[in-house]
């Protein structure tokens, strides 16, 4: 049925590489996939020997492949890293409880210590309880703010030097596009950085070893290696805004697969007018001491609202405005919709 051969070894080809268009067999694919991630890690100096590194593990495809490959490369190339799995339990029945089972299987398979930090233990609220109170409108905003902080708290518990996330090239290209579409120049500049951290050292640096790795190859790798991952969309996620950008990228990829890496390269090469980019001033939250650009961090503002039953209002308060005409409020709601997306990607 197929007479095409692998460009590297001449055996039967099984995969067309989106980045290069090369035809390649399964065994050579494993080699180039692993080698390219290794090259990304070494050329960007992502780690130093002796570091403790947390792998943000959701049980989904990207983080499952990331955990596998970090383990393989750390052993093969003797990076000298101490690896940990870090998962967040948002308290979403039928979604996170199932995906955490897949993380627990990864823990056994790769023999890595696992830390699970739950919203319930940190904040006293599960997402199920939050949605029961506030409905499905701003729930992703809450979840995004809470998750970001929970990951940092988990890193503190594990005393790690860095965290790696499974964000892949498709995710980065989507984010570049979204930041262009909403004119968010500050985030546009940050989102292509392979390591993000704030200058004051307020939170643990986050790195993306899959920055140049195509989603197609991650899924193919998981399929051919028979890796055990969980794939169900969050039951509370409306997934609208990012969904559009995602679909656009996937449509473009079908016509010209190189576009994904080209979008990233473009953003890396942009010259920014740094004078006019608003720099965030980072300080500490007066309530919980978490890093924040406001006196009280967003998580604490949300929690106060939840605990006093005024959660819906607190979403608006956190934007710094409370008294609004109806028209203004509609506009503000749209802004919150947009910030949902940006909060979910606050580390970009």
């Amino acid at each position, binding site marked *: *049925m*197929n007479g*095409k051969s692998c460009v590297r070894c001449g055996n*039967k*080809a*099984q*995969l*067309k590489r989106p980045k290069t268009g090369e*035809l390649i067999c*399964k065994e050579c694919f494993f080699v180039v996939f692993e080698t390219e991630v290794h090259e990304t890690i070494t050329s960007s100096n992502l780690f130093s020997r002796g570091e403790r590194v947390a792998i943000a593990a*959701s049980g*989904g*495809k*990207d*983080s*499952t*492949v990331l955990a596998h490959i970090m383990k393989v490369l750390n052993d093969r190339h003797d990076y000298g890293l101490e690896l940990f799995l870090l998962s967040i339990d948002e308290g979403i029945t039928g979604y996170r409880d199932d995906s955490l089972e897949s993380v627990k299987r990864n823990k056994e398979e790769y023999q890595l210590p696992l830390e699970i930090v739950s919203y319930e233990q940190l904040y006293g609220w599960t997402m199920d309880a939050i949605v029961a109170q506030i409905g499905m409108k701003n729930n992703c905003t809450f979840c995004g703010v809470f998750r970001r902080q929970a990951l940092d708290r988990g890193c503190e518990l594990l005393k790690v030097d860095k965290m790696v996330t*499974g964000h*892949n090239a498709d995710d980065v290209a989507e984010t570049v596009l979204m930041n262009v579409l909403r004119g968010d120049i500050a985030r546009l500049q940050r989102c292509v950085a392979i390591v993000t951290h704030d200058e004051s050292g307020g939170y643990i640096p986050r790195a993306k070893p899959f920055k140049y790795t195509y*989603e*197609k190859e*991650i*899924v*193919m790798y998981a*399929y*051919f290696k028979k890796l055990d*991952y969980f*794939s*169900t*969309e*969050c039951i509370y996620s409306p997934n609208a805004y990012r969904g559009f950008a*995602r*679909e656009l990228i*996937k*449509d473009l*990829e*079908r016509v010209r697969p190189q576009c994904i890496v080209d979008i990233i390269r473009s953003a890396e090469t942009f010259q920014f007018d740094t004078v006019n980019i608003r720099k965030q001033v980072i300080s500490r939250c007066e309530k919980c001491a978490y890093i924040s650009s406001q006196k009280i961090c967003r998580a604490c503002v949300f929690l106060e609202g939840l605990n006093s039953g005024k959660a819906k209002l607190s979403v608006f308060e956190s934007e710094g405005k409370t008294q609004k005409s109806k028209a203004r409020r509609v506009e503000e709601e749209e802004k919150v919709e947009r910030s949902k997306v940006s909060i979910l990607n606050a580390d970009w």
Partner: protein
Amino acid sequence: MKVKVEFSGGLELLFDKATRLTVDVDEKTTIKDLIAYLKQNHLKEKPELFMSGDSVRPGILVLVNDVDWELLDGADYKVEPNDNVVFISTLHGG
């Protein structure tokens, strides 16, 4: 002729959680025909998450006997008896 079909990456949820099916199709059936057949006979919900036009939605990978359909003729590939056709969604979070 009999053809084996597999769903993963979340697509199985659209097919009543079926991860494997064996279907009986005519000779000269292409992948495009097979997609239409699956929609007609097995898809339970949200066809827009499986299909786009007369093919699968971009972001769904297709393999025939563990070979990327991009190496074959894509949607025009004619399935053969006992072929194993795998549909994998890449669209779910990771």
